[in-house]
């Protein structure tokens, strides 16, 4: 019994965020009399928040390293502008333009990383400068005007859905097949982990808990894909998101480099004296953030079907809020990719739910501010209680 209490106490932040997400979703589901979780709206929530999720993942890494990046909104806008210039003004093929844009993102990240990691300028200052610099460059590239429309192929990544090869009209069959495949993969992986645990003689959860967990998660995946399938299927951008979430979670939890990122944020001196190249780690985290900011910029531009000078304003704050609501600590060393995604979804559902209720943008901002504050305050009060 005490064991269970301990586990709950240790994981309250993780569970707390999921409970908050479910709670907020249910609340709006009731208030909006069922509109929130309609297939159309669920698809909308994913597409509306895709770029914040992408930025949130990158920001989680930056914050875990103990740094901050205020420039991501401006960088996203700048990349949107660059891609528009390449595709609309110079007629460069879509895939080439996307590759070039991501490369520019990486270079911008390297620029920030250089100043932070090798010259020791505080990241707050470097990226504040970057925020101004790249907003200015966006205006210069666009000449203060909006560039539109993008070629059709480009819009696919942010606005289109997987085609249905086996259409029967009502349910998107390919989506269901992918969903079931995901369930099978998930269960196979869980079985593999369980086998490993017994191989290494570790304490195992009971078979019942194991089964219950698998059934619950499989059911969630099934329901979620079903909801998507009865609307238009899986949007391409969801595939991108899933790949990023799974890839980055794996990277942060399971790889040597991921563990080095946590170590640098947790205690830079100790990490350095343990042979970790702390400057290099910091540098590459910023490069990564640059690439993800570029990707977010492309998705946003594609969704809007235009590159505008005001694109991406305040995105940096949404991304920081997502990571922090998701449990990342600004003092570094603590946080998860999954947490940042949940954080972004909490904010996204708040936005969407309040919009459905007809609450104005003014009140939406205010509520989001309070949610951010209470999430962090809850965490700190909890920690104080524990110590």
């Amino acid at each position, binding site marked *: 019994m005490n064991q269970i209490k301990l586990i709950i106490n240790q994981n309250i932040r993780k569970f707390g965020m999921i409970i908050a997400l479910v709670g907020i979703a249910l609340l709006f589901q009731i208030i909006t009399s069922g509109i929130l979780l309609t297939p159309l709206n669920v698809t909308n929530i994913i597409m509306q928040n895709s770029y914040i999720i992408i930025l949130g993942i990158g920001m989680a890494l930056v914050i875990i390293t103990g740094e901050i990046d205020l420039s991501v909104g401006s960088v996203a806008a700048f990349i949107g502008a660059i891609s528009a210039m390449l595709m609309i003004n110079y007629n460069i093929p879509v895939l080439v333009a996307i590759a070039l844009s991501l490369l520019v993102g990486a270079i911008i990240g390297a620029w920030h990383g250089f100043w932070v990691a090798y010259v020791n300028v505080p990241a707050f200052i470097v990226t504040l400068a970057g925020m101004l610099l790249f907003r200015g460059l966006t205006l210069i590239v666009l000449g203060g005007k909006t560039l539109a429309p993008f070629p059709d192929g480009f819009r696919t990544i942010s606005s289109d859905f997987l085609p249905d090869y086996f259409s029967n009209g009502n349910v998107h069959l390919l989506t269901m097949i992918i969903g079931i495949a995901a369930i099978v993969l998930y269960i196979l992986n869980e079985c593999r982990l369980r086998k*490993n645990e017994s191989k290494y003689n570790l304490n195992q959860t009971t078979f019942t808990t194991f089964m219950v967990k698998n059934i619950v998660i499989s059911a969630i995946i099934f329901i979620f894909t079903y909801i998507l399938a009865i609307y238009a299927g899986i949007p391409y951008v969801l595939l991108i998101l899933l790949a990023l979430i799974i890839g980055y979670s794996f990277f942060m939890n399971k790889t*040597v480099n991921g563990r080095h990122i*946590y*170590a640098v944020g*947790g205690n830079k001196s*100790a990490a350095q*004296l343990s*042979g*970790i190249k702390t400057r290099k780690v910091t540098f590459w985290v910023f490069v990564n953030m640059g690439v993800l900011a570029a990707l977010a910029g492309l998705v946003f531009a594609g969704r809007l079907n235009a590159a505008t000078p005001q694109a991406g304003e305040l995105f940096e704050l949404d991304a920081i809020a997502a990571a922090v609501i998701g449990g990342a600590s600004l003092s570094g060393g603590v946080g998860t990719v999954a947490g940042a995604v949940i954080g972004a979804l909490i904010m996204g559902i708040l936005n969407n739910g309040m919009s459905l209720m007809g609450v104005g943008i003014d009140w939406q901002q205010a509520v989001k501010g309070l949610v951010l504050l209470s999430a962090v305050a809850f965490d700190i009060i909890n920690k104080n209680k524990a110590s």
Partner: protein
Amino acid sequence: MNQFVLEMKNITKEFPGVKALDNVNLQVGKGEIHALVGENGAGKSTLMKVLSGVHPIGTYTGDIYFDSNKCSFKDINDSEALGIVIIHQELALVPELSIAENVYLGNEQATKGIIDWAKTKKATEKLIEAVGMKASVNDLVKDVGVGQQQLVEIAKALSKDVKLLILDEPTAALNETESENLLKLLNTFREQGITSILISHKLKEVLKIADNVTILRDGQTIETLSLQQTLINEERIIKSMVGRDLKNLYPIRKPIIGEKVIEIKDWTVYHPQLPDKKIINGANLHLRAGEIVGIAGLMGAGRTELVMSIFGKSYGKRITGKISKNGKEITVNNVGDAIHHGFAYVSEDRKEYGLILQDSVKKNITLANLKGISNKLVVNPYEEVEVAQRYKEQLNIKMPSIDQQVVNLSGGNQQKVVLGKWMFTEPEILILDEPTRGIDVGAKNEIYKIINDLANHGKSILMVSSELPELLGICDRIYTLSDGLITGEFLKEDANQETLMASMTDNRRAHV
């Protein structure tokens, strides 16, 4: 009828899972210097936190009487109002403010919110004169030495009309003259009727100055001894502190010394910020397999700087000199190189440079050798658990689980985690910088056993320590360092505290 200025009765304080204080009683007579001693974790600091209101009423059980009045402090302000002032080990001064500003910080001499600086400075002048300081009240605290900073804290206490002054390890960071002066000051206070409680690890000091000593062990009062009796000596107090006779603090080992492993020649290191200041001056030293070599030196002699510069140039600029391993010259330009060549470095400051406090024990143990539990850069979590369990058992690390955050472990167990971390890199040369600093006697003994065991397995150990008995107790050979210069080399048989001290204070550079 009651001659006690302070009585703490049956104080019990529990933290989740631990009883930090268990029915502790403390009686302090008026105008005396009362020492409080005990191993780390015995409950000294907790008791003082209860007394000063850091742990407010209601979070503990038991009663506190001050001047025969029952007290119920809700916070520090309540206790300070009665004249109980605590000076913590970590000084609570603002380095960027002046002495005067610091003394009256939180107690500003103001009328209607406007500070009267003339009054503040005049009052501060009187106070710092009383504590024997010669600095100007306008000096910034960061510009005066640690010893002087301690005096600023005391001046601050005096400004609050202190009746009971509590000093937590006041001489830990001071040199001998400064300690001497501080103790004299306490004597002066005794004459003026100010009562002091002195928490100290330095039993010599305690014996010299205190009237009575109360010994805590494992959260319980063991006894209070009157030091007017001449029978009380250090051994008597230690016995009471550890609860047993400690004859073999330094475990016996039969050294099996092999070939020369490391040879360092003409090692010169400059200060990282002051490019003309030589910190290490042409040092020559060597290490053999299975040998424990000590480095003795006073504070500021360059001990840590020497070993850190050897460990992948982690300290200093413009480093010149040669390192050879097994007769071949090697390049060690960064920590990665050092680890690759089999070096390991256990820092003197484990919290700052050794551990990631919020991470689990197992993550800390594997940190310096993640590749050792990885397959193509993917960490195998099961092997990680195995490795951590292995060192937990081998080093006898006391903790509920290897998933415990290291911040929650005691100093001795934290140090074992750091040792485990470096042992997992399978080093050939272990550099240990003050490996037993801030660790209680029992854990020290265990650390010595681990060090001996490593040497018996053929590792070379280079150990820095400011405790000469420790160096004499476990080293085979000792170098002395003075002002960046190696001034002597002694075999264990030829060394004693006096010869070492003479060599450590041999200030050759001053004569040049």
